[in-house]
C-alpha cells in the first residue's frame, strides 16, 4: 500500500512528538475516522487540538483520511498498513494506535461503510431515484376540439453524483408508449435476474 508524497508529508508531521504530542495525536485520529464515517464536519474543534497550527492540522487530517481510504480501497491488512506508516517514520506506538482504531472501525462499523463512501466518489451518469406519473384525459385545445385522448405524464427523479440534485426528466406518452417502456424495463429486470443466477 502506498501513499502520495503529500500524505506521507502529513504523516511525518503526525509522527513528530514535538508537533503532535500524545493527546493531540489521538484526537486527530479520532477526528479523521469520524469525519469519514459519521460526520463530514467533525471535530477539528476538539480542545486537544487547539494549540496546533491550523495549516498543519489540515495537512495531517487529510493525510490520515487518505490513509484510511487507501487501506479500504486496497483492502489492506494490518501488516501492509504498518509497513506504509513505518516508511513515514512513525514510531511503533503510534502505528499501533492507528491500527487499533482502524480495526475497531472495520469490526464495529464494518469496512462496508468506507466502501460505501469510496464507491460514492466518482463519476456516473444521472442516477434515477424515483418516478412519479400523472394520467390525464385530453378534451380539447385551442387548435383542435374533441380530441378525447388519455395521456400519461411521467417524471423521473434523478440525482447527479457531482452536485446532488438535477432537474427531473419529464415526458409525456400514450398508453401504448408506456406499455413499450414498461415492457423494456421488465426485459432488463429479467436479464438482471438471470445474470444473478449464473
Amino acid at each position, binding site marked *: 500500500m502506498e501513499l502520495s508524497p503529500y500524505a506521507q508529508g502529513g504523516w511525518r508531521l503526525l509522527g513528530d512528538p514535538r508537533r503532535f504530542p500524545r493527546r493531540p495525536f489521538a484526537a486527530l485520529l479520532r477526528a479523521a475516522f469520524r469525519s469519514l464515517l459519521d460526520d463530514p464536519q467533525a471535530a477539528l474543534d476538539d480542545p486537544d487540538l487547539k494549540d496546533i497550527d491550523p495549516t498543519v492540522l489540515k495537512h495531517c487530517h487529510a493525510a490520515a483520511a487518505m490513509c484510511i481510504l487507501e487501506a479500504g480501497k486496497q483492502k489492506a491488512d494490518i501488516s501492509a498498513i504498518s509497513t506504509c506508516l513505518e516508511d513515514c517514520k512513525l514510531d511503533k506506538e503510534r502505528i499501533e494506535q492507528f491500527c487499533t482504531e482502524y480495526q475497531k472501525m472495520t469490526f464495529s462499523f464494518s469496512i462496508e461503510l468506507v466502501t460505501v463512501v469510496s464507491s460514492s*466518489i466518482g463519476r456516473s451518469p444521472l442516477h434515477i431515484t*424515483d*418516478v412519479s406519473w400523472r*394520467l390525464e384525459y385530453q378534451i380539447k385545445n385551442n387548435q383542435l376540439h374533441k380530441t*378525447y385522448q388519455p395521456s400519461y405524464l*411521467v417524471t423521473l427523479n434523478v440525482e447527479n453524483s457531482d452536485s446532488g440534485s438535477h432537474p427531473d426528466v419529464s*415526458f409525456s406518452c400514450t398508453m401504448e408508449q408506456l406499455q*413499450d417502456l414498461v415492457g423494456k*424495463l421488465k426485459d432488463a429486470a429479467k436479464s438482471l435476474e438471470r445474470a444473478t443466477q449464473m
Partner: protein
Amino acid sequence: MLLVLSAEHRAHLGCLPRAGGAAVGELGRLALEQLRRGAAPRACESAARKLNISVDIIQHGVEGLAYLLTESSKLMISEVDFQDSINVLGFSDELNKSLLQLYLDNRKEIRSILGELAPRLPSYHSLEWRLDVQLASRSLRQQIKPAVTMKLHLNQNEDQTAQVLQTDPATLLHLIQQLEQALGEMKMNHCRRIVRNMK
C-alpha cells in the same frame, strides 16, 4: 353546432360560384396543399392561368376554403351542421355537395395536422438499456456493483434528444411496479366511466 362565417370569409367564398365547377376541385386541392405545406403563390398563379381567372379570385377562394375546412375539422362538426352552415352562402346544390365531399374526405388528415400545433411536452420515443457491473473505480477496487444503464430517446418539437440514465436493481423494480400501477389505472371503473361519458 354551426359554423359562423364572418363577412370577410363569406366574401372570399363568394368567389367560388364564379369560378365554376372544375375550378372548385382545383381550389380545394390548393387549399389542402396550403394546409400541408404553407402558402404557394406560384401554384395560385399557374392555376389562375389554367382556369383563366384572376389571381386575386383564386387566392381568396383558396383562403376561404382553407378556413372553412380548418374550422369544420377543428370542431368536428357533423354532416348536417356543415350543410346548414354553408347554406347561408346561397350556393347551388352541386357546389354544396362538392364542398361537403371535400370536407368529409379530408377531415381526418386536417385534424392530424392541427393536432401537431398543440402545445407539447417532450414525448417518449424509445428506450435502450444495458446491464453493467462495476468492478472497480479509481477510489475503490474489487467491487461488484450491478447497474442498469439506459438511453431514453425523447421527441421535443421535432428534435430527438437522448439522455443517458442509470439505476440500481432495487430502483428498477420499484419503477416497474409504479408504472404498471399507472397503466392499470386506465382500466379502473372510474376512468372507464369518464371516457364513456365524455364522447
